[in-house]
Structure formats: structure tokens, C-alpha cells
């Protein structure tokens, strides 16, 4: 007996991609057989795993090397901010050393890919950390300023206001009211 088969390759490719990607806990859209859109941030470890798994099936990720470096810059910055024992060197020196590229190169690349500067990204991340600390840990601004190496509370407050348009105390008040409001709605 002989079977004659007809295949729809694009159906096949999508099916394989779906089966493989579903094993990771990430949201994605398969745009077409050579483009996958991830709807959330993929950390480097997951990225490596996905890449390895797809390679097994003959897929090659035509990856954007720039994105990978940017991702590493972001991870290094976050590590610097959240780790209190991080070495107290200038962030530009630390990044250049850690990523083995000149700071000028990293800085240009970062702006090109993320539409913001490294300096600005550091401020955004720091302010995010401040938000977390004032809402969840009930630390005073003085304690937070000290923890995050701000020269003074005034400096922290003005950076917060410049970045978000509101003061740290207004932020705290709004989030508190918002929580009260949403718990009222549930009851």
C-alpha cells in the first residue's frame, strides 16, 4: 500500500511552534511562520531555553544582538539598584566593565533600542523601587533616601516629582485610597 500525502507547511510550522511555546509560561502571538511576537518581557534564561528548543526542530532565531545587549544592560542596572551590597562605583564604569564594551557604545545602543537613555532608565528603576518601598514596607522617606544612596530627602523628593509629576506623599495617599476603594467595591 502507498499513501499519497499533501502537507500544509505553514499549518505544520504553526502547530509545532504552538506546542513548543505553550510549554513556557509566556503570552505570545504567532504572526506568521517566521515571526513570533512575545506579549511580555522574556528573561534571558527563558530566552535561551526557547532558543535551544526551537533549534532542535530546525528553527533558527535570526536574533537581534542589540536586543540581547540591551537586556543585559537592564538586568545589570536592576541588580545594581536592588542589591544593597553592590560595589559603589559609578554605574557607567560598572556597566562597561561588566558588559565588556565602552560606555559610549552601550549608551548609544541603549538609546537606539529603548527610546530612552541609560541615565533615565536608572532613574525610572530607582523611582519604581521607591514606590515599592513606600507602599509595601512603610519606610519613611529618610530611610529610603539613605537606602538608595540619595544625598538628601529633598533630592529624592524632587526626583520623584520630576519623574512622576506627583509628590511621594501624594503617591502614597492615592494608592492607599485606591486600595480602600477597590476593597469597598468587592464587599
Amino acid at each position, binding site marked *: 500500500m502507498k499513501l499519497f500525502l499533501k502537507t500544509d507547511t505553514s499549518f505544520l510550522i504553526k502547530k509545532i511552534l504552538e506546542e513548543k511555546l505553550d510549554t513556557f509560561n509566556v503570552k505570545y502571538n504567532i504572526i506568521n511562520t517566521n515571526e513570533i511576537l512575545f506579549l511580555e518581557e522574556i528573561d534571558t534564561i527563558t530566552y535561551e531555553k526557547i532558543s535551544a528548543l526551537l533549534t532542535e526542530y530546525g528553527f533558527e532565531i535570526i536574533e537581534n544582538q542589540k536586543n540581547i545587549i540591551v537586556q543585559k544592560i537592564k538586568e545589570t542596572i536592576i541588580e545594581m539598584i536592588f542589591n544593597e551590597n553592590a560595589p559603589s562605583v559609578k554605574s557607567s564604569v560598572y556597566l562597561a566593565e561588566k558588559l565588556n564594551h565602552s560606555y559610549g557604545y552601550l549608551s548609544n545602543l541603549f538609546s537606539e533600542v529603548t527610546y530612552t537613555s541609560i541615565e533615565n532608565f536608572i532613574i525610572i528603576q530607582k523611582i519604581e523601587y521607591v*514606590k515599592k518601598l513606600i507602599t509595601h514596607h512603610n519606610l519613611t522617606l529618610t530611610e529610603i533616601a539613605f537606602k538608595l544612596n540619595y544625598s538628601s530627602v529633598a533630592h529624592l523628593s524632587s526626583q520623584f516629582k520630576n519623574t512622576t509629576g506627583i509628590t511621594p506623599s501624594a503617591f502614597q495617599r492615592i494608592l492607599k485610597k485606591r486600595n480602600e476603594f477597590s476593597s469597598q467595591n468587592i464587599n
Partner: protein
Amino acid sequence: MQKDFILITLADDDEDDRMFFTDAFDELKINTVVNTVNDGVALMNFLNDPESILPNIIFLDLNMPLKSGIECLKEIKNEPRFKDIVIAIYSTSSSEEDIENTFVLGANIYIKKPSNFGKLKEVLSEVVTLNWQYITSGLNKDNFLLRM
């Protein structure tokens, strides 16, 4: 690794304002795909249609006929399906009470309508760029408050 555009829905009953906004978005460095609706009812119909692709940000005029921006905001915040959408309110009002109230109701961004096109572009660029960092860097959207 990253998506490379932002989906925007703009709800405003004023035709000139809609045009200013879409023109301003066109000129930003970040790619945006903008769709517009003319009032609050049209906005909710669009969002509730299962066929619609939900936007990343909704720009919501506070004063619209049929259904106000505040009513839309409340409805959007009550629907878990819309929880990932960032809400940017814009209004001519700069009353502290109005502003704080929209934040408490769940808005992320409050924009006082700028008086000229140059300023509008600047404001939108800042809003979209910061929002981009929230999308691409896994920041906690519940803590996203921005007043312009």
C-alpha cells in the same frame, strides 16, 4: 524579543483634538498604531467586542457626550479582561480634586490638555516612552502614576 509598536485607542468627541493627537503620534519615534472613537459608548462597544484587539493605552477625554470619561474609567476598571490596559486621562481641568479622583479610580496618567501642538507632542512622547519602559521592562503597572 520585544514587540515594536504600541496600540493606542483615543476617545474624544472633538474632531480637531482627535486630529491633533493622531498627528502628534505620527511624529513620535516609537511606532504607534492609533484608532479613534468619538464618544464613551463607542469606546465601550469597541472594547467589549470580542473581535477587537485590546490597546496598550487608552487616551480618554473626560468630557464626552453619551458616556463620560469617568464612567468609562469605572467600567474598564471593573472588567478583569481590561486589566493590562493603561488609562491616560486628559482634560482641560487642572483641579487637584479631579486629578486625584481619577487616579484613585484607577487611571495611570493624567494629562492637562496642552495649549499648542509642540507641547502636545512633547507630552505624548514622554507618556509613550515611559509606558514603553513599563511594557518592555516588566515594571509593576499598579504603581504607574504620571501627571503631566
